[in-house]
């Protein structure tokens, strides 16, 4: 087979491989269900990255396979050497400049997504998150409850409402991670960390500790209940009733740790 013909064949195979790869990337269910506005942006970013990098991977593997196919030593070539090509400045400048442009545009796009995800919304509610070995608790301040502060081991969030988590740790570092929201942030002793999430799908999702915090780390999981605003208000009322009925014990603890 002539060099010309084998190159054409390789080129066609490469294009087909890229097309198949991109098609496949649409077929694979990469992520769990999307349950926040941020998740939609982040998944989109990921998919763009996958599509942008498939041609690069196909190029590298394609060149390797083509070289193995065309240039492997044949019997009788044991003492043969290749042509003494030392380099090509134009080619080297090209493969320095093009990846730089590609990488900087990808990182630029990621900054746009980051900005969108962290943009301060017109309205948000603030909820406290406390991590300790090996469970989570959540503090609803009066601004959310409309009454006494609530301290709960359950996390209920109203649908379509931006939530700003204020997170504190009582012992070591934890990370508050909700895969369905595609968001996490470490919960660090001594400082308050934050993140913003805008749940937009009613349902129950897992929230888990995502930073090794000791022997019980793998079981430090809880459920995020995203509910309609009406259900949320109803849940708040039931919690308020609960804390007032058990008078000082539960309510006192809630007041002490909220914030």
């Amino acid at each position, binding site marked *: 087979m002539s060099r010309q013909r084998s190159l054409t064949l390789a080129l066609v195979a490469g294009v087909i491989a890229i097309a198949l790869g991109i098609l496949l990337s649409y077929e694979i269910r990469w992520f769990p269900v999307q349950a926040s506005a941020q998740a939609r942006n982040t998944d989109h970013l*990921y998919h763009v*990255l996958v599509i942008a990098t498939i041609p690069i991977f196909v190029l590298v593997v394609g060149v390797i396979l083509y*070289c193995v196919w065309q240039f492997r030593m044949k019997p009788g070539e044991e003492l043969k050497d290749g*042509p003494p090509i030392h380099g090509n400045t134009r080619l*080297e400048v090209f493969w320095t400049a093009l990846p730089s442009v590609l990488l*900087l545009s990808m990182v630029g796009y990621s*900054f746009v997504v980051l900005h969108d995800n962290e943009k301060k919304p017109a309205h948000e509610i603030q909820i406290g998150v406390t991590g300790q070995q090996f469970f989570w608790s959540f503090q609803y301040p009066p601004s959310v409850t409309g009454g006494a502060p609530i301290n709960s081991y359950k996390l209920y969030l109203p649908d379509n409402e931006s939530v700003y988590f204020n997170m504190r740790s009582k012992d070591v570092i934890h990370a508050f991670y909700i*895969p369905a929201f595609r968001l*996490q942030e470490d919960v660090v002793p001594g400082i308050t960390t934050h993140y913003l999430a805008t749940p937009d799908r009613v349902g129950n999702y897992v929230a888990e500790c995502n930073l090794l915090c000791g022997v019980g780390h793998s079981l430090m999981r809880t459920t995020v209940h995203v509910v309609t605003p009406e259900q949320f208000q109803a849940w708040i009322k039931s919690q308020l009733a609960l804390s007032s009925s058990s008078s000082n014990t539960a309510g006192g603890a809630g007041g002490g740790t909220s914030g």
Partner: protein
Amino acid sequence: MTAKLRAPGFYRAAWLMVGAVGFATLITWLVRMSTGHTTFTHYLSGDAILTVSLLAVPISFLIGIGGFDYWYYWATGRPTRPEDHSGHGAHTWRDYFRINTDHKVIGIQYTVNSFFFLLVGGLLAMLMRAQLAQPGSHFVSANTYNGLFSVHATILIFLFIIPVFAGLGNFVIPLMIGAPDMAFPRLNALSFWLLPVAGAIMLLSFLAPGGAFADGWTAYAPLSDQAPIGQTFFAIAVQFAGASSIMTALNFLVTIITMRAPGMSFFRLPLLVWANFATSLLVVIATPFIAASQFFVLLDRALGFNFFNAAKGGDVLMYQHVFWFYSHPAVYIMILPGFGIISEIIAVKARKPIFGYRMMAFSLLAIVGLGFTVWAHHMFTSGMANWIRIPMAITTSIIAVPTGIKVFSWLATLWRGVLRLDTPMLFALGFLTTFTLGGISGVMLAMIPFDIDVSSTYFIVAHIHYVLFGGSLMTIFAGVYYWFPKMTGRMYDERLGKWHFWTTFVFMNLTFGPMHIAGLQGMPRRVATYAAKFADINLFISIASFALGLSTLIFVYNMINSWRGGPKAVANPWRGMTLEWQVSSPPPIFNFDRVPTVVGGPYEYGVPGAVHGILTPPTPATVGAGSGMARAPSQ
């Protein structure tokens, strides 16, 4: 008998180590008594004695085997014994268990010791995968599991990847640059013996009360401040492994700068030497930072310094900054020497000059520089100031450019070559494939919103294993096969080598590939158990990983069997141009019986009549000229 106890060796080491425990007991007793403990039992604290012993016992071991003898005699003004080189070379296997100043012996000591720890680290991984084969498994307890992955990572990073590159470099670099030995042979010997010490401490931590250190190889404070005594083993073992790294790096730098053969200019250096030069710069600058981070933890633990105790004004995030200021450059410490190995193999096996030699060298230096500007990309979700993420994301993307230059240059070197697809070359091509995948996932992780999602998940586990297994380990296997004839004087079994490559390549991808998906689906790393929905994928990963573990046995069998009874190797089985192939296999005791002079580039394949180095028989005149540049190591 007394002579045996006084002479450097294991007998002297044994009684000194016992003495060190006594010393540790005495000193902690005295200090605790003088600082006001009232009852006798409080004078003796097991943890305190253990902590001081962990520092004193290894040092007394090193004194015992003779690591400091020469310097001690010199410092005390006693007559030093001039090096008569009688200790050079190894005649029986016992010689590998002594202090030896021959870089070829040390190189083999380093390499074999590292592969021992590869097997140990791999075995720990097998135990982890057994635990993870199904959710809710009770194969080991959660605490033991946390110990398993912590020791697994620590051993494979500090006792395998970093030192095995130092070992191969130790053997090959002096040969490649035409030097008779390293610049500081005694320092070289000491740097080796620090490694088994560090490894022993790490493994012995499994016997400590409360179990092995279990806070990951990152040992984030304040968890590591509060952990049982096993964590002290980590904090101290890292000091010994780090000291070994620094000593070797200094040795490489001085050797490469001062001991090149006549005519060996920097731009005639083989790229492996360039790669180790760049790596050594990273090691010398960065390693003190991890030493510092672990000293902080040690002081917190032993003496209540509160560096990382937020309640007492400590700063928790500072640990991470100091730690990653070493541990990100460490990623390049663990891959740049591999880049060098791949450059050697691809040039020789494709029978072509390296495409863009100078760009290959400059891109190494670019990685060294940029490598110090990206550390906080490990901390995008740490709670540090938000703005730091922006510059770190930009530098993290940009550092992919010099790496990309290297990959493209290797591909261009393959182009129109005459490819010999033997075991070293297969591993080199396999490396290009898997490392590209690791590089791609690395670039993705530079994108902050995506990192905020998958940070600390199995996606990270997949990424680092594509970089460290698909990257570093593939280059290590390639290098070991490539220099096996030179190091042992025997040929390995090519058929078994190919079997080893294909099983490793296939099962490596089957093991670590699915971890990307598990991570994207939200499975956290460092968990002893997981949600039921991850059961199938984890069972698949576990089965693939056991097959991957078994594939290593092919390698071990091939190495042992070939070393013992393989066919004798000729001096230059690959028809390489670099200087190590111009001497016998294994090389003569002082490397060059004939004086090397370098007259051309190292990879002039295909250039008619090109030579890299000329070896001339020593005449009085050339001996004088040669010793100016490549002088004997210990004058």
